[in-house]
């Protein structure tokens, strides 16, 4: 296809051509970044938690102050919950991956005299966590009953400086082990929290995400052998078959109310609900971005249809003359398609530069990573396709112009 006649025609419609290029460029820039943002959100929503997500339900009761019988009450509750039909495991857990409702975090150090902690980790404390959450152990073992200490004992020990009352062991995630001891066997290694708490690694789990503060490293979590009660802000977590979850929640709440009718149920939900809630704003944002992309592409496509129709109308006589001089319908069709392809290409080149600029702006203001190179060719392909689709109708109409138009005086 000869490009020269197309270019010389475009030169005669500079302003309209420039407007179309500008529109395509802006669309390209925004769509590239919007798709990138959607990708980021989806990636975030898709992060692995490392637990048996579809099998867990959480029940949290409001507890006031320190009651001396909190420990006994917890034991009674646990015994009762284990009796419920369909319940496979019961545990007490202070926090769950990807969920609102607080988390406890600390700085882990390789050397007790370090000024700054090596990594910030979230610690999972409570009873029977590993089997209840369904976390997969890849090396070492779970805590033995003798390793657990009560939270109160640990806090008191910390105050008096008596290291006997403190936990001595911990289980870490594989990601954390690789960060702390790269290339070494993590089992048997020791890490410190402050100067006083030394914890020996006895087990490594494949994956266990932290509840929040994901920026610190979503997989940097540890488990400590510390007994919790509901008075410490922990929840009961029950593991069951996915289809039994609703029934188990009902039965468990009824059982707990029966044991003590004065307690307030603060939370009762499946883990899936907790996770959905945590990522709700990401899902909403991704939805909005999809809407914007669709609207933008529609507006741009309609703009192309409008301008192309106008050009076809304006050039009816020229088309007639060309047809009379021997151009086939295919030639005319291809002429308009090539013209659109050229305009789209200019727009895309300009749009890529703009997209890069917008990405730089977003990187400095919203802590986003750099736009990966793959978005450029994909964005280009999308806009070329949209352009060709939009121009097809007007181009077909142009191709249908009969040669006889040339001979008619206007």
């Amino acid at each position: 296809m000869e490009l020269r006649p197309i270019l010389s025609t475009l030169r005669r419609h500079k302003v309209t051509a420039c407007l179309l290029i500008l529109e395509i460029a802006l669309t390209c820039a925004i769509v590239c970044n919007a798709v990138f943002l959607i990708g980021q959100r989806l990636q975030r929503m898709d992060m692995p938690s490392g637990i048996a997500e579809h099998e867990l339900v959480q029940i949290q009761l409001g507890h006031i102050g320190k009651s001396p019988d909190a420990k006994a009450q917890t034991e009674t509750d646990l015994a009762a919950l284990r009796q419920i039909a369909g319940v496979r495991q019961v545990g007490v857990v202070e926090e769950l991956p990807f969920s609102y409702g607080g988390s406890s975090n600390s700085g882990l150090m390789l050397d007790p005299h370090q000024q700054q902690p090596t990594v910030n980790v979230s610690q999972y404390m409570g009873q029977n966590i590993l089997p209840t959450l369904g976390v997969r152990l890849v090396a070492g073992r779970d805590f033995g009953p003798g390793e657990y200490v009560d939270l109160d004992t640990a806090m008191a020990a910390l105050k008096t400086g008596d290291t006997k009352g403190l936990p001595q062991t911990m289980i870490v995630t594989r990601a954390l082990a690789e960060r702390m001891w790269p290339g070494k066997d993590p089992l048997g290694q020791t890490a410190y929290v402050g100067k006083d708490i030394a914890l020996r690694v006895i087990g490594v789990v494949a994956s266990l995400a932290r509840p929040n503060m994901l920026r610190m490293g979503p997989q940097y979590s540890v488990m400590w052998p510390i007994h919790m009660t509901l008075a410490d802000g922990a929840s009961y977590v029950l593991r069951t078959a996915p289809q039994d979850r609703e029934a188990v929640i009902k039965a468990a709440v009824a059982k707990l109310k029966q044991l003590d009718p004065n307690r307030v149920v603060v939370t009762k939900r499946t883990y899936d609900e907790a996770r959905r809630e945590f990522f709700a704003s990401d899902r909403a944002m991704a939805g909005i971005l999809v809407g914007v992309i669709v609207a933008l592409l529609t507006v741009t496509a309609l703009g192309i249809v409008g301008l192309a129709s106008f050009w076809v109308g304006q050039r009816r006589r020229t088309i007639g003359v060309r047809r009379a001089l021997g151009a086939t319908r295919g030639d005319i069709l291809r002429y308009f398609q090539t013209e659109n392809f050229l305009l789209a290409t200019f727009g895309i080149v300009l749009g890529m530069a703009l997209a890069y600029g917008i990405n730089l702006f977003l990187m400095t203001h919203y802590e986003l990573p750099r736009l990966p190179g793959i978005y450029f060719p994909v964005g280009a392909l999308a806009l070329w396709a949209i352009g060709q689709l939009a121009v097809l109708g007007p181009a077909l109409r142009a191709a249908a112009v009969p040669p006889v138009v040339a001979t008619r005086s206007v």
Partner: protein
Amino acid sequence: MFGYYLDLALRSLKRNKVLTTLMVLALALGIGATITTLAVLRLLSGDPIPQKSAQLFYPQLDPYPANQPFSRSGKRVPYLMSYIDAMNLIHARKAERQAAMAMSQVKLTPPSGVGKPFYAQGVLTTTDFFPMFDAPFQYGSGWTAADDEGRAQVAVIAGSLNDKLFGGANSVGRMIRIEDHDFRIIGVLRTWAPQPRFYAVHLGGHSYGEGDAVFVPLQGARADDLMPSTMMGYGKSIDVEHLETAPAIWLGLWVQLPNAADVAAYKMFLGNYAKEQVALGRYQRTDTALSGLMEWMRSEHVVPDDVRLQAGLAFGFLLICVVNTVGLLLAKCLRRSREIGVRRALGASRGAIFTQFMVEAAIVGVAGGVLGLVFAELGLWGIRHQPAQYASLAHLDLSMFLFTFVVALLASLVAGLLPAWRACVVAPAPQLKAV
């Protein structure tokens, strides 16, 4: 003359219905998106307390040890305050008013027979809270400084809680059970829910939405072991039973400073206080800060990043819609060169042609504005069904309503400028020759 232009413009728009619909629709989409996101942004970044915000300041001190800075960069001053410092500043009375506060999720037990216990958001604070923040009382009043020091078991409750527990009647003098301790109600607030909930930034709870339910004296509530939602320690651990003396920050302090001289004096006072604490060995840093309310809202990113991102996106979208409209208007106008030539030959001035085309653009703008308003209402309806804490607040007020039309008209007039100018420079002779 204007009527004639209007008639011409309407005829021209009617002649090419598809193109006109395209222009109006594109403009309306852009305006709908922009107004929706702007309404949310305005709502979220608004002044929570317009009559007072210029006088309210948030002081910060740094009790953290030298080798353990509050932030990794070491540049940020802690955004909460320890109990000892908050009490020292309150007792110093260097500002016109000053109040310390902490948030707490509290269990409320209704008077017997009204219902089951439930959890609500409570505020532990000191006497100046109500006059300083202009919290309006429906019944009764707040407590006094003597009540603070005397650890009085009194409470001020929100109107909504009063409706729920006492059917809206004057409940002053009645008792309310908070975390299994009895508090005497001494005041009932009218509806009061500043958006954002500026006084609770970093203290826990939501930044937007309903107001807090109960307000109790800080010392009295702490005597009953009510726990603050947020606390951060700078020692080995936080001894939650002795929070008042523990190396922990868990309070927010607000002060009212009526004029610039007061602000300067207070800054000086804070600086001296920090130096004094260093001399006493309590502090190892002399960093302090004093931020105005709106400045504090901005620096703490109270408005979610997503909302600002959406507004930016909507503006980009509107820009594309305007470019689109320019292109389409231009195409239409160039097609009518012959008509313009005839009009010019018959005596119409360039100004007349220009005005005629601008009127046409304005009609597109107004139509786009009306439709855009419909889209914006739809958009806000969508936002109200989103899981955000500010969802229920998303509404279009009168000023935003008018603003829609201003934006629409402006966008269409900007879009109309180029085509109108091109139209008015059309030379009449060649156009007539071709006929």
